C-alpha cells in the first residue's frame, strides 16, 4: 500500500515562495496564472492491506507531525 500526502500552506499564511515562482513563470512567458502555492509531497510505503487502519493512523501522523495545522493543510490518499 502507498500513502500520498500533499501538504500546502494555509491561505492565510503569506507564501513568498509561491509568489516568487509565479513571478518567474510570468517572466518566462507563461500567462494566465492567477496564483501559485508551493507545498510538500510525501510518499509513504506501507505493509499490510487494511486501508482504513492505515488511513486512521496516517491521518493522526499528518495532524501531529507531518503537517503543522497552524500554518498548513494536508490531503491524504491511500492506494494499493
Amino acid at each position, binding site marked *: 500500500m502507498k500513502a500520498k500526502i500533499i501538504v500546502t500552506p494555509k491561505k492565510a499564511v503569506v507564501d513568498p515562495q509561491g509568489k516568487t515562482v509565479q513571478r518567474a513563470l510570468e517572466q518566462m512567458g507563461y500567462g494566465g496564472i492567477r496564483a501559485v502555492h508551493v507545498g510538500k509531497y510525501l510518499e509513504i510505503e506501507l505493509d499490510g492491506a487494511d486501508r482504513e487502519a492505515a488511513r486512521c493512523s496516517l491521518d493522526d501522523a499528518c495532524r501531529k507531525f507531518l503537517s*503543522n495545522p497552524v500554518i498548513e493543510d494536508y490531503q491524504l490518499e491511500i492506494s494499493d
Partner: protein
Amino acid sequence: MNFVVLQFPASNCDQDAVHAVRALGHAARGLWHKETALGDADAVIVPGGFSYGDYLRCGAIARFSPVMQAVKQFAENGGWVLGICNGFQVLTEAGLLPGALVRNRDLQFHCEHVFLKTVTHDSPFTNRIPTGKILRIPIAHGEGCYFADEATLTKLKMNNQILWQYCDAEGRVTDAANPNGSVWNIAGICNERRNVAGLMPHPERACEPILGSDDGKWIFESLIAALQNKTIAQAA
C-alpha cells in the same frame, strides 16, 4: 542558578548560551536531547541552530526528542523555559508557545543586528531591561517570520504576551524595521502563564561588548533576577 541548555543534532548555539550564562556568573551545562531527565535545573534554554537539518519543518522533529517530555513537564510545573531562534521554533512546534515561524517574506536568510522594543516588562524575561532601552541584538535566520491567526493574535495582545517587537534605532515599530515579515513585527512572545518564552534574535550572541553589543545580557539578567526572587519567596 543552574541553567540547562538542550542539545539536539545540529543545534549550534548551545555553547554560546552556556558561555553567556557562565560569563554572567551562573552555572550552565549542555544536555543531550536523548536524556529523559533535566536533573538540577532552574531554567531551560532551547538554543538556536538547525536541529535535524530543519528537515520537514524547523523544529518539527526536535520537538519529539526524549528530552522534550521532561521540558514539557518542567514547564507544566512552572519552570522557566527560553527558546532562542530554532529553540523558538521547537517550542511553537511543541505547542508550548502559540503560532508558528515561517519562511522570511523576502526569502533571504538575514544575518544582521536588529533593534528590539520591549513591549512589556511584566515577565521573567524582561523585568530587568531598562525602561525605554532599545536592545541591539543579532538575528541569523531564514525562517523567522512569526505567524498566528487573528484569534491567537488578539489573545496575545489581550494577555500582554508579546515581549519584543522589531523596531528602528529610535524605537519606532515600522515595516522597514521588520527583517522577516513577522505579523505586528513580533520578535518574541511568552505563553499565557508567562513561564515559557521564545524569540528569534540571539541574546546569547550579545552578552559581551567585543561581540558588538551586550544588550542581550538584559534578557538573561531578567531571568536570573526572577529566579533569585522565586528562591527567596520559596524560602520565606
